[in-house]
């Protein structure tokens, strides 16, 4: 043992340790961008991860089709019933649509999709014990992605970019306790703030806090982003209310939300790089705490 401690090999390992410590300090000082070593690792790993993801999705899809034939038959039957039900509901659709147009005009809610610039990305990495199901995508700063860009799926809001490399970016999900999103219950026009909760995140749910004590929000209400703060465009679907309960302090209510996007299993996302009302860099961060300790 003493021989090793006096050897040049030990000195090299100590030197490497000090170098890594320096990189860590640099990362701590500048947490927004991936440090040099991370960018280097990203350049080497991202292409392999993209390839591996494509292969595993292809193989997984093939076996899923075979293994879930019975389930698909049941699903087909229930979907047929749902289609019949939806056809009945279609009768009411035109009336609601006209009413919706009127309300939008009344509340001056603008359709913002036309002003959005989006970059499609694939989820290429999910760590075994990732913090609140955070993940890595295959697009980085070279594709125009920057820190704090919102990330959505076809179903709704997924999270926000918390670190950017050249060819990869890390996404903090809305299930994370560090991320707060200003939201509105569109049925009753009541606002609140969504944030993660350890126990709820395990079920894929999150919490909508600060609802008024006399709130009339009910299960099934759809919750969308308000756009206040400038980190998320307004009108992005966040999820729907499962349950409304009073907070322990009794001053307000909170709701349990089921996210519209399947955050724990999402494979394809869109990163919104530009949108109307986007915050400038000097606006306080949407993270209630630093994401990286």
């Amino acid at each position, binding site marked *: 043992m003493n021989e090793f401690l006096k050897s040049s090999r030990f000195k090299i390992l100590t030197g*490497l340790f000090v170098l890594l410590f320096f990189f860590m300090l640099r990362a701590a000082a500048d947490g927004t961008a991936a440090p040099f*070593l991370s960018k280097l690792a990203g350049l080497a790993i991202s292409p392999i991860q993209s390839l591996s*993801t494509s292969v595993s999705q292809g193989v*997984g899809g093939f076996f899923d089709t075979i293994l879930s034939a019975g389930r698909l038959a049941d699903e087909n039957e229930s979907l047929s019933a749902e289609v019949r039900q939806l056809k009945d509901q279609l009768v009411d659709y035109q009336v609601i649509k006209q009413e919706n147009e009127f309300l939008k005009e009344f509340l001056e809610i603008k359709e913002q999709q036309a002003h959005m610039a989006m970059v499609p990305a694939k989820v290429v*990495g999910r760590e075994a*014990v*990732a913090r609140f199901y955070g993940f890595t995508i295959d697009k980085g700063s070279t594709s125009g992605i920057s820190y704090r860009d919102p990330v959505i799926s076809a179903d709704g809001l997924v999270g926000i970019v918390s670190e950017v490399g050249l060819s990869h970016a890390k996404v903090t999900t809305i299930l994370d306790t560090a991320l707060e999103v200003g939201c509105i219950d569109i049925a009753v026009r009541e606002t609140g703030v969504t944030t993660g909760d*350890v126990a709820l995140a395990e079920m894929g749910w999150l919490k909508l806090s600060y609802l008024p004590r006399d709130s009339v929000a009910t299960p099934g209400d759809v919750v969308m982003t308000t756009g206040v703060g400038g980190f998320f465009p307004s009108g992005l679907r966040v999820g729907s209310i499962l349950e409304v309960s009073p907070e322990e302090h009794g001053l307000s209510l909170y709701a349990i939300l089921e996210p519209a996007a399947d955050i724990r299993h999402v494979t394809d996302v869109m990163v919104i790089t530009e949108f109307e009302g986007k915050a400038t860099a000097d606006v306080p961060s949407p993270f209630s705490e630093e994401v*990286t300790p």
Partner: protein
Amino acid sequence: MKQRYGYPLIKYSLYILLLCLSYVVSSSPGLSFKPILVLPMVVCIAIYEGEFVGGLYGALAGVLLDYGAMTLFGINAMLLLVLGCAAGLISLYLLRSSVLSSLILTGAVALIQGLVSFFLLYGIWRLSGASMLLWRRFLPTALLTAITAPLYHYGVGRIHRHFEALQNPTGETP
């Protein structure tokens, strides 16, 4: 010249390739519950190649984990440098090179890495209910990681012996 530099270069490059593949497989988004495969790889390299190489590959494996993790960059690299080096020293002075040694050392490394990750991701923020995650996600992952150790012990052992034989065909010690 080829025996002295060529074969070790191929061997160490092969280890790097396997390490990267192990990382890609264990970070694949398709699997919801998976082992951290770079850990048994580092432990087995440390057992067969010694504490110095174990430390270097530990640092490399840590950089890969840091690349995908939500923790501060460099934490896993420093931790695995120390653990890789320690695994090499323990196998040299305390344990024989065997499947059981790989299993024990991988279990210990996975447990320490899991506890440190848990502390940095959840513990440090004192999130309510976080201890549940330790039992439901971190410890089962460490256990699953340890179970994969025999596979790596066999694989890395085969590579090590193959290149030993190529470098030293007569079996003489230099």
